[in-house]
């Protein structure tokens, strides 16, 4: 993975020193909250319902054992022994005292981590496919380009005060696992002959105005990418609305101008760049960054593993976990492992410090020092030998990390909701837990098949409810929590915004209502191979709406 050079190191250390001074001035009363708030947000410090929260960047979800152990240390020292992985592949530490934040940032800087640009109207953490470099359907590894975008966008003076926050995602796989079409810019790596380039989607987003991104350019060659991104950012910076926070995202600009006119303006901006403005990233620099992402030296192995097959035959629990939580790897004899952070009745995305250290140990011993965070709030060991899976599984079981539900109905994306968040109108976590309980039986989950449930506690949509096959949005009605259900959303390469079904349900009604919907699906599907989303597409929403609002 990428290692800081002396410039990165210096920048991060200087930023911590600067923020330490700002915190001291706030604590002394020299800075008032209105003055301090933008400074703390630029360093990832939020004030949540019960405490401050420190959001820490995990660039493109890439971790190492060393980093993960340090996150465990921060969790133990400054939080309450746990962290919360987010849908931007970052980690949030609740309960951190403001006076301790500089010390926490020192610990993070020790392992080349920081909280810069995890908030504010700037370019945020670039997210990427958690199976990058390991998946069979990836044409290249997108991480080097994510790193190049990170370096370009970090402290970019022209884009430090955008109209609103800005999120970029990159994939190189046919199956979109990082939801590029609901990002401000979504990049899909493509090959034309030997030339690598990017399909560019702009203006996607969720929140109160969900929009699927528009295809702006089918192929931007890699050596033109940063200049093209600058052209997009300049059009947005110039014309994005600053008069209304709710209309300030680039999706509104693209929608109001129309994709064709927006594209014309981007192309004009790009064409107008003078030669001395061009970034002209040297090939040597591109190669240098790519070298950090060289794949491990895999051993030559047969496609199958006798140890793995024997363990599956002997242990039904292992076989179930292996069926659900493994992903095909580019190398024979290897696989990618999803460590689910969605135990039934747990809090989605939460991981305690002991578990972080266990995952770090497993990565170090069996996983070539590579750990990824998924945008669906799980962890991944991308490179693991099939032979090692029985041992890894036993260790995960002991650590409470072997929930066999990747991609199944209990593998929900859930925001922190009103239990933690100042913006939320309703709780998310308890509703998710109640829904999980209804579908807790592993056989039932497997029978249902792949199905994404996403829950948000407010219209800001941190739980990405718009793109859940079933979306649940918590709303406040005169002080009471209600939950609006939507059907048919998806975040993949066929991205669709879900459709609201009708009136909201009380929290206690949600689990039973979803069970009726799911059982209706099971009765209507053509076979077990027809997924919920496909049955929904084939039949329309009416039978499922009817089930949702039926009474038991």
């Amino acid at each position, binding site marked *: 993975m990428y290692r800081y050079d002396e410039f990165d190191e210096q920048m991060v250390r200087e930023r911590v020193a600067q923020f330490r001074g700002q915190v001291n001035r706030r604590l002394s009363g020299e800075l*008032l909250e209105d003055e301090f708030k933008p400074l703390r947000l630029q360093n990832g410090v939020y004030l949540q319902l*019960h405490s*401050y929260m420190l959001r820490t960047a995990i660039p493109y979800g890439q971790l190492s054992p060393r980093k993960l152990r340090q996150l465990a240390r921060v969790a133990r020292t400054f939080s309450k022994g746990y962290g919360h992985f987010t849908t931007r592949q970052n980690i949030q530490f609740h309960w951190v005292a403001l006076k301790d934040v500089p010390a926490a940032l020192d610990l993070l800087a020790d392992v080349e981590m920081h909280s810069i640009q995890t908030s504010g109207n700037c370019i945020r953490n670039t997210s990427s496919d958690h199976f990058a470099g390991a998946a069979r359907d990836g044409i290249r590894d997108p991480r080097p380009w994510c790193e190049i975008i990170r370096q370009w966008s970090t402290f970019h003076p022209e884009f430090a005060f955008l109209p609103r926050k800005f999120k970029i995602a990159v994939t190189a796989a046919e199956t979109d696992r990082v939801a590029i079409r609901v990002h401000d810019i979504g990049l899909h790596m493509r090959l034309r002959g030997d030339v690598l380039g990017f399909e560019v989607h702009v203006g996607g987003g969720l929140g109160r105005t969900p929009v699927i991104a528009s295809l702006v350019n089918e192929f931007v060659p890699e050596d033109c990418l940063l200049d093209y991104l600058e052209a997009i950012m300049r059009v947005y910076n110039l014309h994005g609305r600053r008069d209304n926070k709710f209309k300030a995202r680039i999706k509104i600009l693209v929608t109001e101008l129309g994709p064709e006119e927006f594209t014309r303006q981007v192309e004009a901006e790009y064409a107008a760049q003078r030669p001395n403005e061009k970034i002209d990233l040297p090939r040597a620099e591109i190669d240098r960054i790519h070298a950090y992402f060289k794949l491990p030296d895999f051993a030559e192995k047969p496609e199958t593993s006798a140890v793995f097959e024997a363990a599956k035959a002997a242990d039904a629990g292992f076989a179930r976990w292996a069926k659900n939580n493994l992903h095909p790897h580019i190398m024979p004899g290897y696989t990618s492992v999803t460590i689910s952070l969605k135990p039934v009745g747990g809090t989605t995305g*939460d991981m305690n410090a002991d578990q972080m250290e266990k995952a770090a140990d497993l990565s170090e011993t069996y996983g070539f020092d590579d750990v990824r965070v998924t945008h669906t709030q799980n962890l991944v060991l991308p490179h693991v030998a099939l032979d090692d899976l029985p041992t890894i599984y036993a260790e995960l079981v002991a650590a409470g990390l072997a929930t066999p539900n990747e991609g199944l109905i209990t593998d929900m994306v859930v925001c922190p909701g*009103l239990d933690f968040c100042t913006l939320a109108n309703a709780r998310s*976590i308890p509703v998710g837990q109640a829904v999980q309980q209804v579908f807790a039986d592993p056989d039932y989950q497997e029978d249902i098949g792949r199905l994404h449930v996403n829950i948000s506690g407010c219209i800001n949509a941190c739980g990405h409810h718009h793109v859940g096959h079933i979306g649940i949005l918590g709303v406040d009605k005169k002080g009471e929590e209600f939950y609006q259900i939507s059907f048919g959303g998806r975040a993949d390469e066929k991205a669709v915004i879900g459709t609201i079904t009708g009136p909201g349900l009380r929290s206690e009604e949600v689990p039973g209502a979803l069970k009726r919907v799911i059982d209706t699906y099971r009765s209507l599907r053509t076979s077990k191979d027809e997924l919920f989303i496909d049955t929904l597409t084939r039949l329309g929403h009416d039978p499922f709406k009817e089930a949702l609002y039926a009474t038991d």
Partner: protein
Amino acid sequence: MSSVRPKLKPETPKSITAWETPTGRTVWMDADGNWTPDASRIAVFTGDDAETRLANAIRQEAAVTDPYFMEVTETGAVAGRETLRETIRVNGPTVAYGETV
């Protein structure tokens, strides 16, 4: 910090709540005008007295952040439109987390 805080009438009983600046923990004003993390010591204010106390609280920027009125009953129990949010602030998250799991 809530995006929309209800405007309370002068006669509505209210407490004053904020976040302790150095730690971020939730605090309430007690009857002596001091800040306490103990919600059982919530003091109830009304009318001009409440407005004056909130104005004073806002001037205590180093000690507390973003003080605001919280609607309560005459006995200091959380009340009104924001009951759920404020009850969660008083009692903590309604779900297990961290070391309590």
